[in-house]
């Protein structure tokens, strides 16, 4: 009993640690004063102004587009890579996996800088595409890490059996391999999406004129004081993800209930 309450206190403490800043931000989104340092009364006005603030809406759009595109492309390239790498001999396999780990383990600042140096060296002007390339590059390793274990589990025999039974490779892939590795692909996609959404450093070094994701926009605002609309936006984003998650978690249970009846 004692142990259990201790455990609950511990969980609660960690929970507070994780969510205290989030609650702070939510409270700030209702602060009538423009300054972070002063409480000026309760207001909803930032939520209304948010949707009229073109710059913020634009960077929200860009952030989501970037997250989706980079996660999508990274998932395709990464999944294909896993299947190919899995067929390789041990030697090249471990070399490639080693290189794959570089962006993951390397300091973000070094990765960001190295991209910038490369784009400038090859005279590629910085813009949306350079940011996209950056994001895809740091997303692929996450996809590979999520998909690789599943590919390894799948084994070659069932795929080869399908081929022996006359299936075309594409059909065999679609029907045999894909269902097995789908959970890995999905979690790789989600992970990439989240990483891209939250990235600041790589974007900071690869972005061009007029390109601002929410992160870089916030960073440029930090110094003069964040616009309260930004708090409102993050509160909305956070709540929508939360609701989505709760729905996703509730849905299977609800289904079960219906089925049981």
């Amino acid at each position: 009993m004692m142990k259990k309450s201790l455990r609950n206190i511990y969980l609660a403490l960690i929970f507070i640690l994780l969510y205290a800043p989030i609650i702070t931000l939510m409270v700030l989104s209702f602060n009538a004063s423009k300054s972070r340092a002063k409480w000026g009364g309760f207001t909803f006005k930032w939520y209304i102004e948010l949707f009229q603030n073109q710059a913020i809406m634009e960077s929200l759009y860009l952030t989501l587009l970037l997250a989706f595109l980079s996660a999508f492309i990274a998932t395709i390239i990464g999944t294909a890579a896993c299947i190919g790498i899995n067929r390789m001999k041990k030697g090249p396999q471990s070399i490639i996996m080693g290189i794959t780990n570089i962006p993951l383990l390397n300091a973000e600042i070094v990765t960001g800088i190295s991209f910038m140096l490369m784009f400038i060296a090859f005279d590629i002007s910085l813009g949306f595409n350079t940011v996209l390339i950056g994001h895809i590059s740091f997303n692929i390793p996450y996809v590979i890490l999520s998909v690789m274990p599943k590919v390894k589990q799948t084994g070659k025999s069932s795929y080869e059996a399908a081929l022996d039974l006359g299936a075309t490779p594409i059909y065999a892939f679609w029907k045999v391999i894909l269902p097995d590795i789908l959970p890995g692909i999905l979690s790789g996609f989600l992970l990439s999406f989240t990483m891209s959404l939250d990235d600041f450093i790589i974007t900071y070094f690869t972005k061009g004129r007029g390109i601002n994701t929410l992160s870089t926009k916030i960073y440029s605002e930090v110094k003069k004081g964040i616009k309260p609309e930004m708090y409102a936006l993050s509160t909305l984003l956070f709540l929508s993800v939360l609701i989505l998650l709760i729905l996703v978690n509730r849905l299977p249970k609800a289904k079960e209930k219906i089925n049981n009846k």
Partner: protein
Amino acid sequence: MKKNKCKKWAALFSCIALTIFSITSCGNKDSSQDSSDSSDLYIYNWAEYIDPEVLTMFEKETGIQVHYDEFETNEIMYPVIEAGAISYDLVCPSDYMIQKMIENDLLAEINFDNIPNFSNIDEAQLTSAKEFDSENKYSVPYCWGTVGILYNTTMVEEAPDSWAVLWDEKYKDNILMQDSVRDAFGITLKYLGYSLNSVTESQLQEAKELLIEQRPLVQGYVVDQVRDKMIGNEAAIGVIYSGEVLYCQQENDDLAYVIPKEGSNVWLDCWVIPKNAQNKENAEAFLNFLCKPEIAVKNFEYITYATPNKAAKELLAEEYQTNPAVFPPESILSKCETFHYLGQEAEELYNSLWKEVRSK
């Protein structure tokens, strides 16, 4: 066998297709930048240094789409322009940085025929602009002001009148210092009685020692954050640009501003057009728009930095025109100096000394 061959070709194609896709996706941006269809304008300005409504009004009036980015210090802005991977049409650096950009051949001459409203700019400001742009060819003055001390009247014992207060043990952990090389050294050099454009190594070393001595007293090295922190009563004394004073006083009545008796820095931020700008005419149209007195007034009311626009100043409320924090009298200005670009060698010396201070 045949099937295998098909597969091989399919493989080859998909490889090539992906390669081409990725290459073109890099190349894409190049072409889109080259073929900019003259209805865009890329501006690179200090943070919160323009009324967003002014941008919207300009877009409505001209149909030009404005893309707007912000920087925090001159030093952050410079490499972006110099590297050339991003081309802006309008940038707003300060005096000494404009001089550096002119010397390094990064700026385009402005065609003043496109800016008839330029005549609204105060002659006196144009004269001081000659210090860095000797023929007034490259720059259009935008805002000017001083560097001074913002203090909280409830937290200081007596109103400070000297930079010495920044070294006063009494205010340990209550001082906000500027996080920008030239400003930090400029203040210290002035306090020591030297020119803030000093390149004498012994003077700079002396300033460095003083800054190191100050370090334990400083609560934080900040640039624009001074504003929020002073409003929130986080510190008693902060080094601040004069233009922020009105906003701070609006939010917190206890704040007051002083230009120390040793003198200070008077600065002038101007619009310039980089050489690699692709929409030069749009940039000039924007400058002409900004120089309209009513627009300059609107802009002033938002950013509260002193405007060099004479016609606009006359339209301002009396209380602003006579406010010494915004438009300081000649007696104070005569003690102030403008920053000059000191050459690469001196710049490196400043940087390395500043690094020593900051990482002590």
